[in-house]
């Protein structure tokens, strides 16, 4: 049983079942490529999973309540464009610009998430469709606002934070890790988190227990939108551009990380630690398969196969650990 209440260390280990598959992957790549465990490559992997991880943390909330958010990639692009416009405003000091951009990106993402949440919760509509609508709206808006032009030339201090290292670890990855920790705490130690799980499990029972289900659902989507905003800032800092066509298909990667991590698409079961491992699986796979020199097409096929094998492995581990 993938318990919803990940309290003890043991239950974290259990939740994080996909860890075995990750371990095997890492083991394999370490043997297959001399570069895989080099400090440089580890830095690469950490940097590369950062954005997906940030998006996946927000996505975990939405999937836990039984929803889905297809718009995160587009919303990220929209938030990036807005933040990009803000950071290239003339006549302001660097610090102000950076703060303004961060705020603008965050608020833009948050508002998109809020809209997703309010519409799907108020009318009890399938979030798949509502966020598919938002996917189109946010992408169109990003293109419209930017005139389809890539925004560039950001203050140096801002770009620097994208490549800053702390104890040999990319700062942006630590940021993502902090988000994971916060999400874990919120989901497992607070009333709010408890009710997020409960709603995903049995919404009617929560409603009859007198809790404002509507607001919890809205909150989950808003959190997801806000993480898309944060991802946008990280994206900008890392690549020094704000592109209106960034993030196409990112939603699938984020959802995949969450589900590979053992969270149920039906809601109510899963953990953000699993999401962290899921994001690692995807990132390690993408990196390792290039290192061992597979051709592009083989790489794509093998990625598919490994993802499937990973969840099959997890199935057996879960079975073993439950008996």
């Amino acid at each position, binding site marked *: 049983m993938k318990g919803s209440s990940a309290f003890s260390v043991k239950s974290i280990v259990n939740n994080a079942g996909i860890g075995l598959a990750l371990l095997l992957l890492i083991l394999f790549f370490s043997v297959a490529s001399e570069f895989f465990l080099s400090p440089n490559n580890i830095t690469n992997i950490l940097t590369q999973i950062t954005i997906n991880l940030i998006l996946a943390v927000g996505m975990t909330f939405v999937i836990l309540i039984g929803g889905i958010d297809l718009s995160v990639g587009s919303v990220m692009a929209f938030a990036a464009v807005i933040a990009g416009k803000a950071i290239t405003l003339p006549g302001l000091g660097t610090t102000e610009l950076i703060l303004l951009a961060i705020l603008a990106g965050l608020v833009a993402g948050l508002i998109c998430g809020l809209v997703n949440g309010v519409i799907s919760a108020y009318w009890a509509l399938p979030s798949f469709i509502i966020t598919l609508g938002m996917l189109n709206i946010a992408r169109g808006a990003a293109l419209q606002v930017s005139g389809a032009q890539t925004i560039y030339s950001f203050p140096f201090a801002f770009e620097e934070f994208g490549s800053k290292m702390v104890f040999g670890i990319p700062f942006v990855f630590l940021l993502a890790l902090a988000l994971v920790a916060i999400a874990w705490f919120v989901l497992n130690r607070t009333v709010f988190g408890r009710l997020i799980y409960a709603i995903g499990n049995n919404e009617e*029972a929560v409603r009859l227990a007198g809790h404002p289900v509507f607001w919890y659902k809205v909150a989950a989507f808003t959190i997801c939108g806000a993480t898309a905003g944060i991802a946008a800032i990280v994206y900008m800092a890392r690549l020094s551009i704000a592109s209106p066509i960034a993030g196409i298909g990112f939603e699938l990667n984020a959802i995949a990380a969450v589900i590979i991590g053992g969270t149920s698409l039906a809601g109510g079961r899963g953990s953000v630690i699993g999401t962290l491992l899921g994001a690692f699986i995807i990132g390690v796979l993408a990196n390792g398969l290039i290192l061992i020199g597979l051709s592009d097409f083989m790489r794509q096929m093998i990625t598919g196969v490994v993802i499937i094998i990973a969840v099959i492995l997890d199935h057996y581990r879960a079975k073993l650990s439950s008996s």
Partner: protein
Amino acid sequence: MAQAVQASPTDDILLDVTDLRKSFGGVHALSGVSFSLKAGEVHALVGENGAGKSTLIKVLTGVHHYDAGTISLGGAAFEPSDPHFAKAAGIQVVHQEFNLLTDLSVAENISIEAFPRARFGLLDRTEMKRRARTALDAIGLNDVDVDTPVSRLGIAHRQLIEIARALQTESRILILDEPTATLTERETSRLFDIVAGIKAKGVTVVFVSHHLDEVFAICDRVTIFRNGQTIATENIADTSPEGVVRHMVGRTLSEQTKELNDAICDSIVLSVEGLQTAASPHPQGVSFDLRQGEILGIAGLVGAGRTEVLRAIFGADPIQSGQISRNGNRISISNPRDAIAAGIGFVTEDRKDEGLILDMDIAANTSLVSIKDVSVKGLLNFAKERLMAIQGGARLKLKYGKASDPASSLSGGNQQKVVLAKWLASHPEILLLDEPTRGVDVGAKAEIYAILKDLAAQGMSMIVVSSELPELITLTDRLLVMSEHKVQGSLMPEDYQQEAILKLAYGQSETPEGQNQ
């Protein structure tokens, strides 16, 4: 109640179970169960909540695999590997928890096991509906349309549909796990007639119930469970209800007595006037008052509209018209949140869909309503929560492993106790209870009655909807009888007689309309 069925079983052993064991993780659900079924008998399984009755049934029907022991059917070894296997061997079952397809029609649900096929795998819908109609009529559900989706039906109707479905297929052994827990007398006696009928055809019936009067009415033999073991199998003719209870709990229970509640104050805590919901056809609606410390019962037949009234008061369903007043002040309740804020609690009839969060642990379920009491500034205090669960569990004699086990691992009756514990933990001033002891064993039931009466004595008011007249008779201080979505009459304890209540329930007015208060 149906008359006792003439005993006519043979002495051939049809099914023999010896020393059966089954555990879930650390929980030993079955630790040495032996019993045998004689061909053609009606055999009762009784025991406290969590004693292992349903687990045995699930093993026999291929839902769970057993750990050790032997089963033989008709003399040959029998190892049911999946539900299909057991069905093919002629074992039909109505499980304790529902297994209905709520979005499908009644007819489809009844035929699900063996859809009538025309050529080329086509569904013969005319035949399917005809069979469903026949099955429903046989069980007395004349008023239910076979095209209705099950999601529109109340819980008792659902139970009857499960039974109708099991009766669809010819079987050697029919197992009924607490079929009567949600039924009123009318349906129960109809069920007993059916059981008598199939018994006459040579079918062996296994019957689980917490109502010993039912067991003594229709069964030939009874096997008593305690803590995962079979304690004894006795001929009904050779034993008595007291004897069975002694085996069950290991002691004698004191007789339930009806004491008049003298704590009822005159102050009216809840007043309902002209309450109308989407389903109620009567423009005058439902009206009544509830006084402080009073336990008001609502009796009626299945589908009389009792659940509807409670749901409307609690804000679970929208009110069409009518007024609700608390302590004399009109209040508006548009959702459960408002109701809880007004000090009202609601134990729902359907624990699986509305009451419990099955995947979450017992402690989390217990604290769901009063989560503020176990948290500080939004942070959960797990120790406090566990304590709440343990105290609530102890009070209701909950049988469980750890407070951190998921609610789904509990036996049916114990799940019901968790729902009760959840609402008791929220200390409401008014508690609405819909079938509060559904599936709860005799001993625990007595405890629950005592607790409820005690709470009433301390000033809590309650409305109890129940399909068990004895429950209403022991528990309530006043009884409304509903029929066809309106209050047909009101009775005081001195007038509590089965006959009078049933008369009203069938819609024969005793008190003139408008004097229901």
